[in-house]
């Protein structure tokens, strides 16, 4: 039996844990405010807020309920529009702004925008006009042309923080995020009690152990539910998403250790990552959308083994190593992430093994990530690539270049990387290395571009690396 709080009510259900939250709220709870536009995570019409206890505080993130299994709702607070609407029949600031600015036309996308903007008001992180817009980067509207919605988003930003277009860190804002949201009428009063109620749920449920009946795992569900929605409902897959032992970011003297269920947003909010990767925000903005980044785990990206997985390209270039743990025998082994890939969607991994830890060294001095896709945002890459360099005294001591979309698997460009290693850090090395890349890649023509175009992108993006790392100095 699964338990969670849905809006202001604790719900218990014996429905399959693989059923999506979307189907649960619409068909089993008759809450029809949450809309269905695609069921594939692309449109944001089904966005809900998910509140979770971390370090004693409830933190909220937006997620697309169409890809979210009930299993991942257990022990959390799930908020639909019905849980946001003020009891007195009035409107929240986000709702008012959308009405006033003409941000709703046919209205079918609107609830999703309300939820995303509300999630923005509740979440931590930087406050600026830019971040307000990125909060709605996963919501598609076919009617308004977005400008009116943008104005509404800016108004929300203004209202919550009296500051827009300039940034102010969340920490500077007095009071907890939730208290503040209650005081501005962004969320109803009952949000106050959610922390306590989740703690009670947690203590009552914590004795229950994960039952492992088969060798099917899932994490955020953002690949699995797109690829095999129907199967997943009854698959009985074990969710690794909320296992605290799989969600951590630890820094040691010379390396960083990350749990496999860490999601992209965790990286964005991590002090360690922001320190090690100054361009983190710019780079990760190119990866999916806010709600998907809130659900997309690193291990999910690795194991899905798409040749154009962004986090895969990122971590291959960091020389990341992954620990694989057999959930039945308990055996553990560690391999380089780049070695996980044997062929198209074939991995050096047994079904019973899960990725239990990801480790990479901190001794790189330069890092860059580039991605080009047909649609600049919210799109899978045509080609992506990352590079890390360890440079000292003008010499490249170690180079690692990864590239995706140019072969059946994500690639570590071994020859290119080896070639650069031991050479001077400068334009000439890059110019020479550029030629090697063309021998290492085998792109094919598909909907994301012709083979020639991808070859050209490979060259241009590598040049972009050259420019980026040389300006980093």
């Amino acid at each position, binding site marked *: 039996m699964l338990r969670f709080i849905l809006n202001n009510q604790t719900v218990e259900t014996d429905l399959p844990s693989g059923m999506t939250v979307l*189907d649960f709220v619409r*068909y089993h709870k*008759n809450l*029809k*405010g949450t*809309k269905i*536009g*695609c*069921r*594939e995570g*692309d*449109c944001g019409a089904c966005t809900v807020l998910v509140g979770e206890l971390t370090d004693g505080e409830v933190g909220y993130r937006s997620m697309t309920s169409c890809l979210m299994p009930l299993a991942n709702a257990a022990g959390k607070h799930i908020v*639909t529009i*019905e849980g946001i*609407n003020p009891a007195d029949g009035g*409107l929240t600031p986000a709702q008012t702004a*959308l*009405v*006033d600015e*003409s*941000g*709703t*036309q*046919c*209205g*079918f996308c*609107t*609830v999703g925008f309300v939820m995303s903007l509300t999630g923005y008001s509740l979440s931590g992180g930087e406050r600026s006009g830019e971040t307000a*817009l990125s909060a*709605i*980067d996963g*919501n*598609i*509207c*076919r*009617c*308004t042309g*977005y*400008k*009116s*919605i943008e104005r509404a988003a800016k108004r929300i930003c203004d209202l919550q923080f009296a500051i827009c277009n300039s940034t102010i860190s969340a920490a500077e804002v007095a009071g907890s995020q939730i208290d503040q949201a209650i005081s501005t009428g962004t969320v109803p009063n009952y949000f106050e009690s959610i922390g306590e109620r989740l703690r009670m749920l947690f203590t009552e449920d914590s004795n229950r152990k994960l039952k492992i009946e088969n060798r099917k795992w899932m994490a955020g569900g953002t690949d699995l539910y*797109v690829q095999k929605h*129907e199967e997943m*409902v009854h698959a009985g897959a074990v969710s690794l998403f909320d296992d605290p032992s799989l969600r951590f970011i630890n820094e040691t003297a010379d390396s960083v250790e990350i749990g496999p269920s860490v999601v992209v947003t965790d990286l964005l909010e991590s002090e360690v990552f922001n320190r090690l990767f100054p361009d983190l925000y710019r780079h990760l903005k190119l990866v999916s959308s806010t709600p998907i980044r809130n659900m997309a785990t690193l291990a999910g990206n690795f194991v899905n083994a798409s040749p154009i997985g962004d986090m895969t390209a990122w971590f291959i270039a960091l020389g990341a190593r992954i620990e694989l743990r057999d959930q039945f025998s308990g055996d553990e082994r560690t391999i380089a992430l780049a070695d996980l890939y044997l062929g198209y969607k074939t991995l050096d991994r047994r079904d019973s093994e899960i990725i239990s830890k990801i480790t990479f060294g901190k001794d790189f001095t330069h890092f860059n990530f580039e991605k*080009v896709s*047909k*649609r*600049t*945002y*919210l*799109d899978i890459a*045509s080609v992506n690539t990352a590079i890390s360099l360890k440079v000292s005294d003008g010499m490249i001591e170690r180079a690692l270049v990864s590239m995706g979309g140019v072969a059946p698997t994500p690639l570590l460009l071994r020859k290119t990387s080896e070639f650069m290693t031991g050479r001077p850090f400068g334009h000439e090395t890059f110019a020479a290395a550029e030629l090697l890349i063309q021998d290492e890649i085998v792109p094919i023509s598909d*909907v994301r*571009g*012709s083979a020639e*175009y991808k070859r050209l*992108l490979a060259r*241009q*993006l590598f040049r*972009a690396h050259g420019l980026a790392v040389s300006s980093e100095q």
Partner: protein
Amino acid sequence: MKYIGKAMSRVDGVAKVTGKAKYASEFDVKNVAYGYVAQSRIAKGRIKSIDVSEAERQSGVVKVFTHLNAPKTKSSDDDFFALQSDKIVFSDQPIAFVVAESLEQARFAARLVKAEYEEEKPTSDPRSAPTVDSRSPKMRGDAPAALAASPVKFEAEYTIPIEHHNPMEPHAGIAFWEGEKLTIFIKSQGVQAFQGHLAKCFDIKPENVRVVSPFVGGAFGAALNPHYITFLTASIAREIKRPLKFNYTRRQMFTGHGYRPYTWQKVSIGAEKDGKLRSVIHEAVGNTSTIENFTESPNGFGRTLYECPNYHTPYKIAKTDLPTPTWMRAPGAVTGAFALESAIDEVAYQLKIDPVEFRLINYSEKDPETGRPFSSKALREAFKQGAAKFGWEKRKLEPRSMRDGNWLVGWGVAVGTWGAGQAPATVRIALSADGNARVGSATADIGPGTYTVITIIAAEFLGVDPAKVKFELGDSDLPNAPMQGGSITTASVGTAAQGAAMAIKTKLVGLAQKDANSPLAGASVDDVEMADGTLSLKSNAAKKVAVADVMKANGMTEIVETFTSTPNAERRNYRTQAHGAQFVEVKVDEDLGIIKVTRVVEATACGRIINPKASHSQEMGGVVWGIGMALQEETAVDHRYGRMMTTNFATYHIPVNADVQSVETAFVDEEDKIVNPLGIKGMGELCLVGIPAAIANAVFHATGKRVRDLPITLDKLI
């Protein structure tokens, strides 16, 4: 005017932001069963055998219908109906309809329907499909001869791929029968058209069919036709004697209801050296299906736009083994405009004439087809205002002459035009003594703001606060209204609403004047003002009487008037068109080919604007449609199997917020006393028409590369 022309927030805004607006499949109907279509794997041939036994065995499955047991239509229209025979005419055609207790069960079981086919090779590529001539207007002058004699000649071919509307709400509906009476809640742009269709299909009286669609989550033409799903759902609800609901998936949105056809166009232009057009031959071939002949005359677009004595527009359709296309926002016009407005730009470059200047040289002062005047045409003003706002005079003529770091900058312009239509419409208003008004008409509001605009017009002419007006639409029981298509709704229903309000006023004045001592005695209706619950003399406001008192004196609690407006006869002496000029700036990354539309200025002359707030939003939406069409949208077809391939949002791209930078929209004053009393022309489609061409022209200006095949993707630029 008190309310007309002032910005007003949407009256249905609150329902929408709170999630309380009820879309078609959200009505609570008891004991509802769910239907889901199983679709054909092949594009052409016939079903040899179909096995539903496994599907029927699944838990929750009520019944599975195929062509062997599904009800047949009684309509003789050549629309496509599902499950009528074993014949397969397009890929993903329904082969079975699975009815189950839940949507999930129906969907699961649908996958277990097994069919064996006798397969034939489909022809889905319009370029190799057989064509038939379609009706096109008579040639003006002698275009081929004039072309041959022209000192400047130009010729090029343009293509536009299949595109899908992709409203955010997938099609959905619930049908149920009470005896002989059918009620269906369904996504619809025209409830009465659906009603007529269903009445024919069942051969029953229209009064026995009620179609309800108060909120429509976008449609853009996708819900003009009832398509096969309407009859299918209604007829199977009758078979199972239970309410039946269907919800399309996003993937089914690519096969269930038509699309903008693939079009090939060739434009040949003959001109004088000074830029005067001598001859235009604009040929077009659009695809249709093998079962219906869909036409939309894309090449007629320029016939009234430019003063050109010789004009020829031959049009053909290619019979492909695909589903039938349908109207999609600005059908025909945006297609034709992409080709013609690109070609005009190309000729302007050839002659080294500024593209705005070139268009002004060929500006049509009256309709070149008929010689009749335009009822109004403020396009010149639109050019002027748009160019000023955009800063057009700073443009350098040469391609690749403007830069912003690594980005090549390009400025392009194009023109759009759209007929200012109007159709008969009826509005009923019930004004009660307390000043509240109920207004009703069977129109639709698919997003442009019809609820609000009709509320404003009614409030204006009833002299009541808009908050006291409640406008109902989307129910076939309401007074007659046309479908919401062709940008005619405000002109049609708005005129009727004005008429009904005026009728109420006339009635009230008459009733007041029954009292011999009435302060209004002897006054004509025009001398009287009706506002805030009183009738008063315009010449002397002190002479007044309360509406409530008039009603009371006559023993009434409300006055009901129904008014039918029809397009006025005078329109026939004029050409009625709306126009707009679109200016676009793009930036193209020289190395990667990434294209950004950084600035759009759209200046539109479309008569009177009733609600600027809604209209600006609608314009923005149109601009963003244009961006999608120019740069992203394409339904790719795998011609080996005749299958649509890019059938989800991950592969069929529509613009996201981050794709849209600065967009400015402006309405040029345009007074038009001919089109209708309020001077309304409509703009929901016009705003899109010129955008794809303007973007293509800007891309050329930036890069020197002329892309004539949409969408303009990065790989086409490097």
